[in-house]
């Protein structure tokens, strides 16, 4: 069975072969550490390292990689602008009503680069991970209960059918809508709300039937086996240790150079 990720088919690559739980843990650790870093250099370096790792080991098509960047870039720019304009401190540009401060630029760029660093790791994680393998692995290695993992998988299948269902509902309801002078059918808040309600009703029904199906298949009988376990080997531990090592090196290096800043910069 070919693996499919949320960003298209999973292309065999060194990163795709690693354990999903370990990859998720790395993403979590880096995000957690970055929460306490408020200088632009550390997240900037981590972003470049992450980009290099993804380019080198994930074999994601460049187009997909660029497109996946868009939401993170948009969010990062937003953070940068808001901070630069709103944070009090030493003024660099003063063109009323626009006033940009040094502190604002510093914290803003730190937060923006943090977004990018977490973003590149998320892209690397999502594009190389089959959701089914992730769920199996979370059940196996993170002790997530089978009820949760399989409910998520059944939900994932429903999610795949959702766009098609939405299209049919929209078509079915627009047949009944009045025509405007130009021949279009209006699609305002009301029509949207109605279609959303119908989708909700139809999905709830299906969800109920699916949960009955899962139960009739014996989900929740107690001790269970796993047919195709997701492997967790030395390479995975090496990946985890390596990443944590690099993270520590970067923070230590930046600190030694005196460029590191903690949450204290906010006050």
């Amino acid at each position, binding site marked *: 069975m070919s693996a499919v990720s949320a960003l298209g088919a999973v292309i065999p690559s060194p990163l795709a072969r690693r354990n999903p739980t370990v990859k998720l843990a790395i993403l979590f650790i880096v995000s957690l550490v970055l929460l306490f870093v408020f200088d632009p250099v550390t997240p900037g370096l981590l972003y470049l390292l992450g980009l290099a790792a993804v380019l080198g080991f994930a074999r994601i098509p460049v187009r997909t990689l660029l497109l996946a960047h868009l939401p993170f870039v948009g969010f990062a720019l937003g953070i940068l602008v808001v901070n630069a304009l709103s944070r009090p401190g030493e003024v660099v540009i003063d063109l009323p009503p626009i006033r940009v401060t040094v502190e604002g630029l510093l914290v803003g760029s730190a937060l923006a680069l943090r977004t990018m660093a977490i973003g590149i790791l998320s892209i690397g994680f999502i594009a190389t991970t089959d959701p089914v393998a992730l769920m199996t692995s979370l059940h196996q290695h993170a002790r997530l209960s089978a009820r949760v993992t399989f409910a998520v998988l059944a939900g994932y299948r429903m999610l795949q059918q959702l766009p098609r269902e939405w299209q049919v509902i929209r078509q079915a309801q627009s047949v009944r809508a009045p025509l405007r002078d130009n021949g279009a059918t209006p699609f305002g808040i009301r029509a949207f709300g109605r279609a959303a309600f119908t989708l909700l009703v139809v999905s709830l029904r299906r969800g109920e039937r699916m949960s009955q199906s899962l*139960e*009739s298949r014996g989900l929740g009988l107690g001790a269970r086996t*796993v047919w195709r376990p997701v492997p967790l080997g030395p390479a995975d531990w090496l990946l985890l240790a390596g990443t944590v090592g690099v993270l520590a090196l970067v923070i230590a290096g930046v600190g030694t150079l005196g460029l590191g800043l903690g949450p204290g910069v906010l006050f």
Partner: protein
Amino acid sequence: MSDSVVPAVWFRDVSVRFPRQERAVLHGATLTIAAGEQVVVFGPSGAGKSTLLAAITAVVPHSVVAEITGAVTVAGLDTLATEVVELSRHLGVLPQDPDSAVCLPGVAQELAFVLENRAVPPAEIADRIDAALDLVGAAGLRDRQTGSLSGGESQRVALAAALIGRPDVLLLDEPTSMLDADGVRQVRDAVGAVARTGAVAVLLVEHRLDEYAGSRGVAGLPARCIVLGADGTITHDGPTASVLPAAAAQLHRAGCWLPCESELEAALGFSGGLAAPRVQRALRELAGDAADAGAHRAPEFGPVVLAGHDLAVSRDAAPRPVRRRPWPFRRAGQPGQDARRDGTVGRAEGAGRRRVLVRGVDLELHAGEIVAVLGRNGAGKSSLLLTLAGLLAPAGGRVTGARPGLVFQNPEHQFLGNTVREEIAVELPDGSERVARVLAEHGLGHLADRSPYRLSGGQKRRVSLAAMLVHDRPSLLADEPTLGLDRRATIATIAAFRRAARSGRGILLCSHDLRTVATLADRVLVVADGRIVADGPVVEVLRQGDVLARAGITVPPLLGWLVAELPSGTQLRRALDALDATVDAAAGGADPAARPGTDASADDAGLPAAAGRAR
């Protein structure tokens, strides 16, 4: 696994009553199903068939609030004291809806899931998956994604998943009611293969027994038969071959679909099926004289109300650009032209990117005419309707005519109101007198203040049809308007379409239900291999064996005989109408308004069968 002394299923004096309902759904049921026994349960809509299954799976009373009296055991376990999940060790269930029958993204994973839950050693799992898929004739589906399966394939995978845990009892809950002819055949053959192993007791609940039994008739059904009456009691229990003739008249009147020979016996009073000379004579009498006035007169229809010119149909179109087009849409669908008018069309749907399902469609729909489109699932019938309705941009050619109405397969997709009355009144001026008239016309008066979502399947379809007919659009399109309906609701639908045609509408419908098509349609189009391969009167098209084979159409035995023996379409229609008229139009003597409003409630057909006379 099963001990032959312990019955697979055992009921003693079981009654089930749902809250806020006066009548028990299941009433004093006592039955024993031995290990490995094959049983078919049938009865009219709302007779308690689903409740019987729910009592076996222990969904009643554990998951659904209901009052249950008496005792039920499954493989010796008391269902009142056993959790649903614990009983799943002994039960395999195949539900009605293929979409919710499989839950996980991959086929192999779906099957492994059952065994994992039962803690089967991983080393055995692969072999058991292969064996289960082999048994249902689905070995080739092992590596497929479940989202890409057809209805028939989904149901076979679900059947394999129900069997892979080696249950004592296999429950089949109307497993073919949502499938086309190919799907019905696939599932029936798979169930047959399972039954022949004798390792599992099979309980089949089905109302479309004519399709399920297929050409083998009564012999194609499980050996034992239990019949539920409209009041929820067991009225018959015994060998199918002897019970069915005894119960046929009762079931037929109540609106059940029966195998051909049983139906003929109930309607005509003669046994022996189509081979018997007396039956043949009676059918010819129903059909009347070929020289009868009007038999050869060409039907007169009004002007063309909707037409497609060299139309190419594709499913891959965003509906968005289409909405921007003025009605009536006289615009060609060529990408170049579209791109000039509306940039979004050219961008998203260059001709090369859209996979064309049907091309070269030239069709004219006249006022008062009923045309049916036949063909396999996925042949492009629904997409053709969407294109004609202006919801999909044509991949080529053009559509002319005023805006048509379109009734979708799932009525719930189209509901816009909170009550049936609001539903009909959508886009009408406040206090329009049409609402009351249409409610009465379609027998919906007593349901006017109910939520459309809480009606039975047949009632929902009636509401969506009425809501479309209340507007004066000159043509009406309908996608599988009789799917999943019992016979009484089907007859009511036929009558409603005929009235709409008589009032001057052109009607185009696509359907797998050949009998309804033969009863209703003036003309038939057959879609196969990406184009229209036949276009003509029902009788003529159904006589072309090669065309039917290309389009995967199986003509049921009775219809096949009538088409072969009767010279004209008028006679064919007269015979089918006469058979329909032998079904009671009223709901089993009970007052429909007094029936509680759950999905399980009977479908009252508030339309007199007399309205369904030939036009």
